């Protein structure tokens, strides 16, 4: 049995490929799946579909993730590609996991390493600073985003630097670094291809590992046509990548300074490690003489031997590949060069003091929780309107701004898959649940919701009133919004049929058939 295409017609939420009839579902039957999210994707038989844009952000007002997700789903080619690409990564991750018999022990070990470090953070940071200085690295401390940006600006000014090449870094996104650099007249060029695409399109990265994963090739062709003058009708990946290389390479070669992040910082050696697949961090670090690394204080680990555990987990969890292509260790400036490390707090030490949420600092930014999240895959990362999206974002973002991101912890079905894929065993879905409680306590939820929940609580605790409210299933159905969903909006029936009311409730059946027993 299968669904006939006619049955699916006229439904805007279904992909045109499914609606087209011939070869419906062929992508599964033939095992013809996407190869790699960072490589070739299956060409879609497409009529041009504009790329949906992310959440509309208005200052501190709560971001409406659901609205942006709805627009993403209303662009079925984008939604389907996004869902399939990331699910493909999840499947590759599973295969890699099964190749490692000690996978669960590795996760437990990684978690223990990070928890140990976080509970001795001051000692290890001190140790790193001492060793790094001895290696000839300048170490700076930034309390928040503004201080980070000022420090980096200061270093650049000292060297008279006017241009900066930069390897993708979520921390600098968090700090609003590019906007700040634009305001002081320093040109920033991203060296990561996906991040460069996002930069040219004036969008934030939508995923911590695969920044432009929400874009179709035709979207990229469009961006490049408008910015670097490629043929708008040519979306061949080799052509586009080559055109980008030709356009950017001169900027890289001429840059005054380079910036990277750091995936891991090793206290005992005073070194840091950057993992990339394109080798672009090595360009940022090695082409100019000045190398600045912006690193969150939670990235520290005690010793090199701990790195082995985390590196085994990182790429397998992220992309389902056994290793990132480039795992570069930086231990000091090269001859004639200068190296600076800016250690950034920006809310991290405060988060460390939150009893229910501090373990979110264990995160190594692999993005596995995003890839597995069925909500993220169907919403697109930009729908969250925050630097960090997906499950990890739901628990980190409110620590930056509980009001602005008060809707995010509700953008989850609490299915728990994120917790299971997390290589450092963060109990993500439990923290999402805890955030809901916390937001209600802080009154960062709509009043109408509060009133509805209060009414539900009262009704459900009084058997007589409750019985009257659902005297029969028909009555219950009439009360469906209140009864099942506890709010005034009947959102259930918009895209779903309502349940068929049975002749009697279980309660009345029991009374009629087992009346004597109580």
């Amino acid at each position, binding site marked *: *049995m*299968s*669904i006939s295409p006619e*049955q*699916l017609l006229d439904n805007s*939420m279904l992909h045109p490929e499914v609606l087209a009839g011939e070869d419906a579902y062929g992508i599964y039957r033939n095992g013809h799946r996407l190869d790699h999210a960072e490589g070739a994707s299956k060409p879609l038989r497409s009529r041009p579909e504009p790329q949906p844009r992310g959440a509309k952000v208005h200052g501190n007002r709560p971001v409406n*993730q*659901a609205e942006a997700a*709805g627009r993403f*789903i209303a662009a079925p080619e984008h939604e389907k590609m996004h869902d399939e690409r990331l*699910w493909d990564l999840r499947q590759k991750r599973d295969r890699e*996991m099964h190749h*490692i018999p000690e996978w*669960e022990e590795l996760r437990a070990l990684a978690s223990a390493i990070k928890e140990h470090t976080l509970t001795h953070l001051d000692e290890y940071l001190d140790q790193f600073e001492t060793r790094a200085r001895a290696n000839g690295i300048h170490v700076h401390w930034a309390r928040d985003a503004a201080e980070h940006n000022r420090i980096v600006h200061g270093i650049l000014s000292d060297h008279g630097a006017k241009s900066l090449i930069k390897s993708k870094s979520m921390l600098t996104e968090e700090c609003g670094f590019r906007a700040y650099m634009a305001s002081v007249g320093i040109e920033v060029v991203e060296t990561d291809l996906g991040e460069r695409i996002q930069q040219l399109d004036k969008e934030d990265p939508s995923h911590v590992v695969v920044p432009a994963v929400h874009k179709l090739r035709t979207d990229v062709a469009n961006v490049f046509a408008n910015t670097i003058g490629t043929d708008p009708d040519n979306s061949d990946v080799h052509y586009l990548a080559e055109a980008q290389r030709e356009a950017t390479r001169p900027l890289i070669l001429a840059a005054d300074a380079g910036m990277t992040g750091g995936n891991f910082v090793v206290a005992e050696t005073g070194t840091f490690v950057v993992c990339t697949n394109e080798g672009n961090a090595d360009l940022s670090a090695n082409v100019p003489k000045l190398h600045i690394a912006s690193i969150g204080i939670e990235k520290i680990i005690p010793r090199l031997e701990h790195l082995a555990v985390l590196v085994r987990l990182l790429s397998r969890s992220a992309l389902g590949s056994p290793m990132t292509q480039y795992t570069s260790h930086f231990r000091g400036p090269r001859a004639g060069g200068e190296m600076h490390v800016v250690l950034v707090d920006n809310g991290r030490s405060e988060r460390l003091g939150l009893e229910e949420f501090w373990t979110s600092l264990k995160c190594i930014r692999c993005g596995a929780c995003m890839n597995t999240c*069925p*909500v993220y895959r*169907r919403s697109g990362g930009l729908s969250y309107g925050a630097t960090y999206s997906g499950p990890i974002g739901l628990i980190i973002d409110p620590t930056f701004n509980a009001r602005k991101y008060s809707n995010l912890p*509700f953008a989850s*079905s*609490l*299915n*728990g*898959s994120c*917790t299971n*894929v997390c290589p450092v065993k963060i109990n993500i879905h439990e923290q999402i*649940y805890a*955030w809901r*409680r916390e937001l*209600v306590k802080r009154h960062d*939820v709509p009043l109408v919701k*509060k009133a509805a*929940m209060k009414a*539900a*609580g009262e009704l*459900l*605790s009084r*058997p007589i009133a409750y019985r009257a409210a*659902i005297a029969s*299933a028909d009555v*219950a*159905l009439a009360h469906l919004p209140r*009864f*099942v*969903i*506890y709010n005034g909006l009947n*959102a*259930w029936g918009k*895209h*779903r*049929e309502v349940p*068929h009311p*049975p002749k*009697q*409730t*279980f*309660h009345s*059946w*029991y*009374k009629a058939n087992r009346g004597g027993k*109580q």
Partner: protein
Amino acid sequence: MRIGLFIPCYIDAFFPKVGIATLELLERFGHEVVYPRDQTCCGQPMANSGFNAECAATEALFVRNFSGFDYVVGPSGSCVHHVRDNFDAIEQSAEVKVVRARTYELVEFLHDILKVDAFPWAGFPHRVGLHNSCGTLRRLKHATPSELHEPFFSKPMDLLSKVDGIEFVKPARPDECCGFGGTFSVFEEVVSTKMGYDKVSDHARAGAEYIVSADSSCLMHQQGCAERIGVPLKFIHIAEILNGANA
């Protein structure tokens, strides 16, 4: 043993057949099964939305209803998960702790406590797709979730494989959430529905006639989705199959 029958609110109202099947099935094994008439709900809908204080009176009522039984058994994984793992709006007295610890979901009760090895009355000659609801799969550990590196087991599959004539089909994404998620199905209506459409389409592609689950709430959502887009699947709770329903 004396079993308290826990029939969650939405099963009471919309799926009485599931309640009846659960009751009859437990009675077939010779136990005294009592349905406390004053029960309403476990409090999960409020707690799930973050309104924990609003659950207190409902949780207290639950404890009053279900105190004193050897076991409390309900045919809904997510409700049992709430009682066992998140039911903390009221003071955790010894009585509350006992009720929480003795509350079981039907499949785990049959599998782990009664250790049922046959359902001689049951036959279901159909192709079924098993829907492991997230609450049962990842919280109550009904089965191995695909994310973890551990030996495969599945309690619902163990039970269903003892039913005459049943045939399983496997969807491409066997344990992906269907999108119900309690109040999520309303607050994120579009994403929830899209997940439901994908779920029922996946099962239909695999060739399922029926979706079977230990959670009627997921089935309610999936049925609503399937009917809206015209996917000809039928939905049945595991209790009905194990109690001998054959279509």
